């Protein structure tokens, strides 16, 4: 790799007015592949001789295996391999990956499923313990499998002086108390988890197609199951050309990945093991549920004085996530007691802003209640208790957009006419998107072609597009002139995509590489155009010296000066990144108090971030955040049968997510008020407050406080009448 010159200047994003590519609406470069079916996802990988694998899961969380007979499965035509995962005498301890009894691999998907059906299992089912209330009882079976654990309640931690906080609440002019319940949500990636593993893909290397959020790091876990030694990670080549969503659920190979690798090794054949939709619900992860009791107090003007929060995290076998208290707002006296209640349900995983929508729902509910209790309107009380001026401005902006000024119900909820009420509610969000070490290579060839390469993955965010666009901006090219290469573990390493770190890490590295490429080319131009490195203008496919636009070269002419391909690398630069973002949202709803139906009429979000790399993709993501929150608020909840432990909501008919008919009018505003000269991710923030704003809007419409999600007709009617 040749790096002809020491960079003369630090890379910078430049003035927004000067940008030709970034900060605009850029059509995704993989759009044409995605809209025509040409894009190949892991699900779509087809390799000659490939086996299809299917899992057999025990249908309830806890059981003692008495026997597993796979002989009939093995004898079926088309069945090639049966991997027995559990043995007689094994204890199944929780729902999900511990329920996998066997994997059948066959020539066709039908034969694999036949094989699964042909396995005979005898087991004694045990009390399932999927209900958190039951798990807390003294005589409940212990499903907290941590060493030395003696209770299903774990990780209890209290913060703050409880007596002092109680005293402050009693001494305050106004206070409210509320208990809220937030269900477990699933990620519902439309592409389920899974792999296609080709054990002898390239000579001595195994090729692993994976639907993963960490293409750079993914291979490590598969080394052992593939029969390799530690340190032979270079013998595993991971590819994620496209992926159908992740939302936090796709870190690591998972049990399914390990099993896929093992079967590939044992059969010597490529294996396609993608979870079925039912498997995905049972073992693909979830956002933990929560129960919280909040007491919030304030003075006569609605300035908060103290908060007391007792919270439970419901993460099944996981610890659960809860973003703490006070959430977002300033409260001087705080007491928080948060603990985790373990059940035999599968573990929660990271899900877009882990713990935040739960904390938002509790806090925004209490804030809203205190507003009406104090006689200060819900917009004003929020502005009064937020530290950042920007967020107060954002609230005004969404209020104006949703029609708050003209809205009649400001200090008290409306009275439904003919049973129908219309209301408005608010919520705020904040996130700290990370920025970590990442690398990128840029190659410029004498024929003028440009490749920008980094081992990131595009979860649907548009990452692939900015891998090209940032380089195009720097070199005065069009996006289409730069080829982006991502989704390949052989490329320069990049971060796992979690916590909105991808853009904050990748974009600076790409910018740095592009900057280095530009300076290397400028070094060649000294003899031709006469200016020093750093004194050129690259625009519209040409370059000229600053102040001398008459003498210029076309891009192809510049590249023709290269005797060999120019290859430069770049890495994460702290100066190009800054991670803190704020936002606010408003929702307007119509509530039919006769039927309990809630229709969201309009949602508005404003979101700031650093330099918007691709405004259109940003609006897509802000919309997506609002829609996922709307879906969580109105429709989603995981349902277990408490008695036997069957997961009842394991398909898309019973676990419903929002569709076209639920879509309100949506307004996504990119906050350009601070022109920060930095870049960061932003996907987590807009998913945080939507369900809170909708609940507050329901109250504002008709005076019914929804403390339990989702706001389905039966939950709404129960809130109105005490029962359906």
């Amino acid at each position, binding site marked *: 790799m040749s790096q002809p010159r020491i960079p003369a200047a630090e890379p910078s994003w430049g003035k927004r007015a000067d940008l030709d590519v970034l900060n605009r609406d850029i059509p995704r470069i993989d759009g*044409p592949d995605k*809209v025509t079916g040409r894009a190949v996802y892991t699900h779509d990988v087809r390799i000659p001789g490939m086996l299809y694998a299917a899992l057999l899961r025990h249908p309830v969380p806890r059981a003692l295996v008495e026997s597993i007979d796979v002989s009939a499965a093995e004898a079926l*035509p088309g069945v090639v391999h049966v991997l027995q995962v559990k043995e007689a005498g094994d204890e199944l301890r929780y729902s999900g990956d511990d329920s996998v009894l066997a994997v059948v691999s066959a020539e066709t998907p*039908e034969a694999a499923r*036949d094989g699964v059906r042909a396995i005979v299992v005898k087991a004694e089912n045990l009390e399932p313990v999927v209900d958190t209330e039951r798990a807390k009882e003294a005589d409940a079976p212990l499903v907290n499998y941590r060493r030395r654990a003696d209770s299903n309640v774990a990780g209890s931690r209290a913060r703050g002086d409880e007596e002092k906080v109680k005293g402050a609440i009693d001494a305050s002019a106004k206070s409210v108390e509320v208990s809220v319940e937030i269900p477990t949500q699933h990620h519902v990636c439309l592409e389920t988890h899974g792999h296609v593993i080709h054990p002898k893909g390239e000579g001595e290397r195994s090729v692993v197609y994976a639907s993963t959020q960490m293409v750079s790091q993914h291979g490590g876990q598969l080394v052992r199951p593939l029969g390799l030694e530690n340190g032979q990670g270079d013998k595993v080549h991971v590819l994620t050309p*496209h992926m159908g*969503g992740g939302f936090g659920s796709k870190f690591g190979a998972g049990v399914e990945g390990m099993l896929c690798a093992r079967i590939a090794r044992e059969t010597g054949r490529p294996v396609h093991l993608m979870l079925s*939709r039912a498997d995905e619900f049972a073992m693909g992860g979830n956002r933990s549920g929560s129960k919280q009791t909040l007491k919030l107090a304030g003075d006569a003007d609605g300035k908060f004085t103290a908060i007391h929060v007792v919270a439970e995290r419901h993460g099944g076998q996981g610890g659960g996530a809860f973003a703490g208290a006070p959430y977002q707002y300033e409260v001087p006296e705080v007491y928080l007691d948060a603990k985790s209640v373990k059940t035999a349900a599968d573990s929660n995983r990271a899900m877009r802003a882990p713990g935040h929508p739960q904390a938002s729902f509790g806090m925004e509910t209490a804030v809203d209640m205190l507003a009406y209790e104090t006689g200060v309107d819900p917009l004003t009380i929020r502005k009064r208790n937020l530290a950042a001026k920007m967020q107060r401005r954002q609230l005004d902006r969404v209020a104006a957009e949703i029609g708050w000024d003209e809205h009649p119900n400001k200090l008290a909820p409306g009275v439904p006419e003919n049973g129908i009420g219309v209301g408005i509610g608010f919520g705020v969000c904040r996130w700290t998107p990370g920025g970590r070490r990442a690398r990128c290579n840029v190659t410029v060839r004498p024929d003028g072609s440009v490749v920008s390469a980094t081992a990131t993955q595009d979860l649907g965010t548009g990452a692939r597009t900015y891998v090209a666009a940032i380089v195009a901006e720097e070199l005065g090219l069009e996006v289409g002139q730069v080829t982006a290469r991502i989704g390949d573990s052989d490329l320069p390493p990049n971060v796992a995509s979690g916590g909105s770190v991808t853009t904050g890490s990748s974009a600076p590295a790409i910018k740095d590489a592009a900057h280095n490429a530009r300076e290397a080319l400028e070094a060649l131009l000294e003899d031709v155009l006469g200016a020093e490195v750093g004194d050129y203008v690259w625009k519209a496919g040409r370059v000229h010296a600053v102040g001398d636009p008459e003498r210029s070269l076309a891009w192809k002419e510049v590249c023709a000066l290269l005797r060999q391909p120019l290859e430069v690398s770049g890495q994460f630069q702290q100066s190009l990144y800054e991670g803190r973002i704020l936002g606010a949202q408003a929702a307007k709803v119509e509530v039919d108090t006769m039927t309990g139906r809630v229709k969201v009429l309009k949602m508005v979000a404003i979101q700031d971030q650093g330099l918007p790399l691709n405004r259109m993709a940003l609006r897509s993501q802000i919309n997506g955040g609002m829609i996922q929150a709307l879906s969580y608020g109105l429709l989603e909840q995981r349902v277990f049968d408490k008695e036997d432990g069957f997961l009842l909501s394991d398909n*898309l008919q019973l676990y419903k997510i929002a*569709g076209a008919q639920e879509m309100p009018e949506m307004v996504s505003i990119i906050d350009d008020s601070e022109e920060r000269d930095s870049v960061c991710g932003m996907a987590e923030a807009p998913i945080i407050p939507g369900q809170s704003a909708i609940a507050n809007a329901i109250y504002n419409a008709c005076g019914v406080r929804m403390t339990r999600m989702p706001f389905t007709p039966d939950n709404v009617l129960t809130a109105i009448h005490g029962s359906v």
Partner: protein
Amino acid sequence: MADPNQSAPEGRDPHSGGPALSRRSFLKGAGGVAAAGGALSAQAQAQSAEAATAVQTMRGTVEVTLQINGQARTLRCEPRTTLLSALRDRLEPALTGAKQVCDIGSCGACTVIIDGKPAYSCLTLAVQCRGKEVTTVEGLGSPEAMSDVQEAFCAKDGMMCGFCTPGFVVATHAALDRNPEADLEELKYELSGNICRCGTYPHVFDAARAAQAARHDGGEGK
């Protein structure tokens, strides 16, 4: 593998366009378990008994020739193989644009057009499609020559991860062909058989509206 000689259901003309499958024989073929008789009304019992004698069970693999994207494509599959699986798992080379997301007709990611009508290919048996015109997302356009709807999806960012996108593209084509004057509410209705987890609906609506407007301005779409 199953007996390759058993190319047609016993006793039936293999060119007759496929057997009329009843729910009962379908369940039998799929290895499922029929519902307990006691739950069925007398009339339904009589009907299913009649169907059971009229229809023979298909087993093994059959050769089917399907008209896919204007080409005759021949493949071997089982009677119970869905059109979706035939496209994705049996065709050589495979057509993987239609996605398998739920496999039970609740997401729309597998949508194709059969004889001009949108259909869930996961709920359609491949053998039922003999003699019918099947159009998949690949048949509507290619990256080099996109259809008007595909162009509009790109221009309006009607996709994020893109896994639902082929289904939405096909459904949008079908919707605009069926109801060229659809207003936004009607479009929402037409697209309500498809779901998107990333939350692209607003931009999908924009794309559909843009394609619709372009058809009005510039005549018929592709």
